[in-house]
């Protein structure tokens, strides 16, 4: 028993001495820590995330070891990350003189959304079916998407407007009762800065001359204009300021129950 007790105390004493020794020799301690380190995948990911900044600092002649000691230590303890670092370092070093491949294949840009896809996505968020009809909320992005579509020559409006429309938007089945809504905005030649919004409606189960009396409400920045469709389902809303088009809200009220 005495021997065991003595041996245990001696062991504790030895370990304490060893730890003090390691404390007193930080260089040896760092190397020992690198040798006993148990790094896992999370350490690798953290190291890879810091690799670009580490190489940036190294190439800039900064004290990268002091700035990012965890990355430096991990690179000493993980061969795979050290190899990844070498690839990044060497390609950055040679940045201005990278080898020229014999042939560069063309990119596949199918991942980019076409202007039409983009417009459809925006419209999906801009059109809100209502119990009484539908609401369309314009935005700068929606106008930009409309603008990006190839332009089509549009006929002047009943001869009253010489200019082509500023935009045209055709919504198919935007609400259960609405088969289509065609909106176009024409500049008003006589009143600069103002335009006329033209709405052409087709409703499910209704046809000429049963399309009269549908209310179209246009709002912008606290202002409001209303018009009622004629028997062809067409309504004109004049006096719309052209500089607030991105803030327009258009409501089409098709049912008896008014919003």
């Amino acid at each position, binding site marked *: 028993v005495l021997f065991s007790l003595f041996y245990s105390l001696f062991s504790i004493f030895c370990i304490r001495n060893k730890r003090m020794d390691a404390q007193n020799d930080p260089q040896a301690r760092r190397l020992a820590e690198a040798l006993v380190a148990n790094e896992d995948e999370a350490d690798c990911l953290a190291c890879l995330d810091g690799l670009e900044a580490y190489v940036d600092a190294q190439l800039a002649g900064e004290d990268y070891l002091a700035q990012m000691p965890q990355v430096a230590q991990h690179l000493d303890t993980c061969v795979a990350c050290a*190899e990844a670092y070498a690839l990044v370092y060497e390609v950055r070093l040679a940045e201005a003189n990278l080898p020229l491949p014999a042939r560069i294949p063309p990119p596949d840009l199918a991942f980019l959304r076409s202007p039409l896809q983009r417009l459809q996505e925006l419209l999906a968020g801009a059109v809100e079916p209502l119990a009484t009809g539908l609401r369309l909320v314009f935005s700068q992005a929606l106008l930009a998407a409309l603008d990006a579509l190839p332009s089509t020559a549009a006929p002047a409006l009943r001869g009253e407007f010489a200019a082509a429309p500023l935009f045209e938007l055709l919504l198919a089945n935007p609400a259960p009762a609405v088969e289509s809504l065609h909106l176009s905005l024409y500049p008003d030649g006589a009143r600069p800065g103002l335009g006329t919004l033209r709405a052409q409606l087709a409703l499910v189960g209704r046809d000429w001359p049963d399309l009269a009396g549908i209310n179209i409400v246009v709002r912008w920045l606290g202002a409001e204009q209303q018009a009622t469709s004629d028997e062809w389902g067409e309504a004109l809303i004049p006096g719309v300021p052209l500089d607030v088009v991105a803030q327009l809200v258009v409501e089409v009220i098709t049912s008896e129950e008014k919003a």
Partner: protein
Amino acid sequence: MDDLAAENERLFADCANEGSPAQAAAFAELWPVLYRIAYAMLARQTDADALAADCTQAALIKIYRNLARCESPARFRAWCGQIVRRTVIDELRRPALARRAALPADEAGAPTTPPIELNESADLRSMLVAAIAAAPLSERSRRVVLGRFFEEQVDEALAQAESALSDQPVLPSHVQVTRAKNLAKLRADSSLVARLREFL
């Protein structure tokens, strides 16, 4: 703002111009720049062309999806370069491929040796020096380990010294990889690791 920053901002704005012809042109403009980076990193792989195309394509899609995370459009090309480099690294690390970056000749593959005999009463430094001296490492390997840890030299200085000794260009990255591999060899000696743990 300098020309490069303005040009980067222009390219960023075009890439973000959703659905426009300018957007497609901007991504097409980025493609060869990023492909060259990927190709340079993968040049030592047997299927470098196909891998470079795959990685560049994947990087292009990541750039497109993460445009909003580009904090500095004035450094847009550098940001795109980071993405393609990380994509290549991730590709090389995929376990299924287990690709290994080809690096200059080193001591990889040296046979393992029996555990190193160490003096029980040695202090930490003496024990480490004895372990390094007894391990199957080349002279260069010993220098880059001891140089970093006991002489606190940076890899640039170690690489310069090794270049002078070998009469061949040695990069700091070569020094780093050599050191990592040789520390891995030392770590393979479980009795040494157990002894070291007593000090920590």
